[in-house]
């Protein structure tokens, strides 16, 4: 498994990554950006010889009430078969209903019914792919009044029901805690640590919160460098989960590739320091 931090590979960077082979541990792609782009798949297949690849879907919609889009699942399976990635993952969210794809990761009500649905659809996805499908905690601005459990309780219940792995997006935990009014450190402390297979870091944007005058809301834009409080939470997460493989995500207002590579190097440095501090405590 990748020792060094990896980066989210976006199409505007791919030619430079092919040409310069930057010093990052691994590459994570959104298959939805590649499936319609045979040339990019060709370049990625070449990169897969030198880098471990992770396939992180934004289109599977594991929480859709009307089922998984089987045509999309088949396309995903073909790409996964071609790339043989080290991880395949997607979000605890939904994106499509009634044949409409909403291009967003939308909140689910956390109930026993939703748990049954997500567990069943997760099994279907894993059976089709023939490999594990790791679930990421979402970024949250809204919750459903019909929820009967917290996101954290739901993740525990999902792991208990399915044995699935989790992708812990540390920035999402910071952002959701800020937006929904809970302590992100407590979430890291109580997260199902044994299920964690990967960590994410990404930049967010702070705006005035029209929903609560005088407050701010954090938007998961992936359009900035990782913010200081998210780095601090990441160090705490390493203390709890150990040195898990990490990806830095950047999706909008893409910077020069070297800036993104610098963020990955920073994650390596934060992780090394957090491990040393952890070992110092242990002595």
């Amino acid at each position: 498994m990748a020792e060094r931090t990896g980066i989210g590979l976006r199409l505007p960077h791919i030619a430079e990554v092919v040409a310069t082979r930057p010093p990052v541990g691994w590459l994570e792609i959104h298959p939805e950006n590649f499936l319609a782009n045979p040339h990019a798949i060709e370049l990625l297949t070449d990169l897969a010889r030198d880098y471990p690849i992770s396939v992180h879907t934004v289109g599977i919609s594991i929480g859709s009430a009307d089922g998984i889009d089987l045509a999309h699942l088949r396309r995903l399976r073909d790409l996964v078969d071609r790339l043989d990635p080290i991880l395949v993952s997607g979000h605890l969210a939904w994106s499509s209903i009634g044949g409409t794809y909403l291009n967003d990761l939308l909140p689910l009500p956390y109930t026993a019914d939703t748990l049954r649905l997500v567990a069943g659809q997760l099994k279907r996805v894993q059976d089709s792919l023939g490999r594990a499908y790791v679930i990421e905690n979402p970024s949250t601005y809204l919750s459903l009044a019909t929820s009967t459990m917290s996101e954290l309780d739901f993740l525990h219940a999902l792991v208990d029901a399915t044995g699935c792995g989790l992708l812990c997006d540390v920035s999402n935990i910071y952002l959701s805690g800020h937006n929904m009014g809970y302590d992100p450190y407590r979430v890291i402390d109580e997260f199902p640590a044994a299920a964690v297979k990967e960590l994410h870091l990404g930049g967010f944007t702070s705006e005035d919160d029209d929903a609560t005058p005088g407050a701010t809301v954090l938007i998961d834009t992936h359009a900035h460098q990782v913010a200081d409080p998210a780095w601090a939470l990441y160090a705490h997460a390493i203390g709890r989960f150990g040195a898990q493989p990490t990806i830095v995500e950047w999706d909008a207002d893409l910077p020069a590739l070297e800036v993104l590579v610098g963020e990955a190097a920073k994650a390596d440095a934060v992780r090394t320091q957090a491990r040393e501090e952890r070992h110092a405590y242990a002595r």
Partner: protein
Amino acid sequence: MPTLAEIQTGIRDALVLGDRSAVMPLLLGGLHPEHRLAIHQRHYAASLTRALVERFPATVWLVGSDLVTHAARTFVRDHPPEKPCIAEYGEEFPRYLGAQAGTEALPYLAQFAAIDWHLGRLALATDDSPRVHVIHLDWSLDELMTIFLTENTPEQFALRREEVWLEMYGLRGELRMTRLSDEAASRASGQTQREISCVPS
């Protein structure tokens, strides 16, 4: 208690149509959760509008980004995506754009945008994917597209009304357009519908 399908349909109606009535009582977030829902509504409209405008660069060059952006904003409401690959979203946009009020003086706009659509797909082609598309035109739009692609703007350009069967070829970013002879065109018109595109004038 509403079912998950009802909740999701309510959120879809809010995002696509701006109708929040069904879902608003179910949402929590800040003191006024409708503003949190607005974050998702803005993302839906802005991300898809931007994707469409970026998908039709030659069309933006021809008629300006205001017209294309305006049409894209209503298109994402009238024709939401059905599939998760947004690069494949917008095949119906040329026809929709050409039917917009204010484009009556540009009867060739839909066909020009259709060439734009096909070239965008073909630019991503490899040896393993379809590399040739054929389109039927009622104007000499291939000449206009060549001006865009070569950035070689003549002093004057006159669009002629003429029947053209245009074969477009792409491979790893290389693009080529060739007019088909009558004989080749009649063969082309017998090919599968998938590779032939006829946009009504």
